[in-house]
């Protein structure tokens, strides 16, 4: 229904009368239409052509926005998105037409493609910024020292107060356990695949890593639940959650590390081998240091990915309102399950706490990621 503003009869006739004068007034050359209108004597090779002045696209953009606003004011369309669409559509048409007339087809295509690429870039940023702004706006209101230091013990869902200390500790422990298991296994598996793996065995490992990448998180949770909890090996606990998260982390780490190791030039391996360095030392002292910054980034992305997992945690450790620092015994809270829990309670106070928990989770991931970038920067090979 947003498109009605574009397809309907009204805006398009509105657009035409505006675009035509713009085209003719902004074209700098009197004989617009001919692409090679310079003096042949001055430029016998035809190496110069007409270019639009730099301000023209901006002028068209401003004109298009004004047009969009006009559409809004005249009330022809009521939907809020429509003016933006009209403006964008008008800009594309007018700019392409102007450029085609003055500069020729190739430049017009170039400008059209450039505009589309910038537009998609901005569109891709919109949801990201939207989420960030919403979470910050709604979550910041409950942030207080108490929010970070207290638990939900004895806090009525309707009452304000309470905090995420128990959930934060749970997430730290569970993600920590997952990383402790998945990082060594994943990195070593990737080293095997890149440096040693040949033939069928490596092929199947690689294949199953790909399959694991596609495992839905709830399946990882179900697996731990049926294999370890129902059989009585573990109770519902932070450790079980860490194991489920490790399953999800593993393929991401293997793939990221593999990519990074593969881009280490073979010449470096040969150079070191030719110095009489044993292969294991070549891998440990040359290949891994060269790739370390990428490996760290990959590991951190994997950590960030599992830190927000909710479904498997609900199965294998469920919810807790109280601090439980012991990961091997009893339910443990975590940030994502805290958010889920508070949202499902549905009172204004608990929904506020849910937003606060979501913001805390985003900040946690952000801090991890920033830390990873800094560490990666320190270890990155330097050229100067």
């Amino acid at each position: 229904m947003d498109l009605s503003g574009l397809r309907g009869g009204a805006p398009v006739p509105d657009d035409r009368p505006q675009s035509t004068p713009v085209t003719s007034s902004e074209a700098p050359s009197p004989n617009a239409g001919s692409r090679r209108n310079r003096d042949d004597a001055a430029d016998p090779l035809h190496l110069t052509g007409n270019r639009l002045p730099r301000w023209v696209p901006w002028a068209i953009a401003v004109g298009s926005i004004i047009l969009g606003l006009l559409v809004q004011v005249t009330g022809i369309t009521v939907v809020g998105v429509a003016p933006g669409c009209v403006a964008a559509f008008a800009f594309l048409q007018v700019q392409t037409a102007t450029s085609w007339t003055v500069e020729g087809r190739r430049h017009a295509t170039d400008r059209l493609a450039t505009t589309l690429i910038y537009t998609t870039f901005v569109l891709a940023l919109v949801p990201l910024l939207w989420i960030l702004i919403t979470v910050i706006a709604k979550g910041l209101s409950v942030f207080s020292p108490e929010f970070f230091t207290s638990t939900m013990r004895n806090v009525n869902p309707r009452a304000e107060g309470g905090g995420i200390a128990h959930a934060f500790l749970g997430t730290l422990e569970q993600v920590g356990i997952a990383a402790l298991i998945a990082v060594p296994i994943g990195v070593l598996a990737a080293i095997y695949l890149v440096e040693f793996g040949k033939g069928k065995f490596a092929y199947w490992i690689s294949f199953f890593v790909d399959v694991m990448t596609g495992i839905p998180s709830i399946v990882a949770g179900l697996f731990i639940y049926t294999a370890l909890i129902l059989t009585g090996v573990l109770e519902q606990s932070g450790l079980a959650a860490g194991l489920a998260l490790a399953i999800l982390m593993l393929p991401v780490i293997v793939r990221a590390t593999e990519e990074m190791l593969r881009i280490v030039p073979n010449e470096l391996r040969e150079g070191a081998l030719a110095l009489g360095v044993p292969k294991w030392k070549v891998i440990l002292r040359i290949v891994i240091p060269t790739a370390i910054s990428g490996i760290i980034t990959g590991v951190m992305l994997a950590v960030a990915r599992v830190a927000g997992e909710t479904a498997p945690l609900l199965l294998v450790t469920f919810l807790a309102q109280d601090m439980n620092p012991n990961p091997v015994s009893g339910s443990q809270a975590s940030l994502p399950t805290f958010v889920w829990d508070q949202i499902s309670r549905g009172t204004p106070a608990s929904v506020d706490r849910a937003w606060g928990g979501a913001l805390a989770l985003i900040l946690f991931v952000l801090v991890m990621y920033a830390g990873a970038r800094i560490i990666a920067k320190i270890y990155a090979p330097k050229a100067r």
Partner: protein
Amino acid sequence: MSKQIDLVDLDIYYGDFLAVQGVNLTVRANSVMSFIGPSGCGKSTVLRSINRMHEVIPGAHVKGEVNLDGENLYGPNVDPVLVRRTIGMVFQRPNPFPTMSIADNVIAGLKLEKDKKRKESMDEIVEKSLRGANLWEEVKDRLKRPGASLSGGQQQRLCIARAIAVEPQVLLMDEPCSALDPISTLAIEDLIRELKDRYTIIIVTHNMQQAGRVSDDTAFFNLSGIGKPGHLIEVGPTAQIFSHPECKQTEDYIAGRFG
């Protein structure tokens, strides 16, 4: 301290594919031998088989013998790591280790694999090796800077310094100047002539003038067709190969009539 190399009936394979067939060749101690021949004739393959770098490629193996002062490098219980420490190698493209400084690059082979017999300090080895590679004056004030900050020619000399720091007895060079400008090439050729006093050197080159300038002996390789194995066609003193080659093929190649 340099040694003589004898290749005896050497066949080199990549998997099932016979790449080079029946090479018999002697490289005298303290001499420079150049390998010439068209691309794909197996020069680099023969070179890499001399310090067992060949077998780094999956499926690659050899038949026959490579003898270093009479000791077969492909004999039982020969450790390829020790072979490579005795026979150093410089590659076509300079490959300094990007995570290491200039000084660390020079002593990389020593730091990664300690040689307890060496008494000199690391600083002494750095200076000695860089002087040996004619690079000391250019880099002595910036030894802590990354190896990748040097120019291409300097990087290649850094790689030579790195190779001679482990005190090998033989130095293999696989087109060491093909990525370098004429001035850097001159520096490396001068260096090769100096290094000859201490090492046995084999250099692969596509540049006939270079072969003529630096080498005492020249070996010409050729292959009879695509998919056929390469052969050693002729070997002899460089002056003779370039003026009175015995084989028509050699003469044609050197005269630029093919290849």
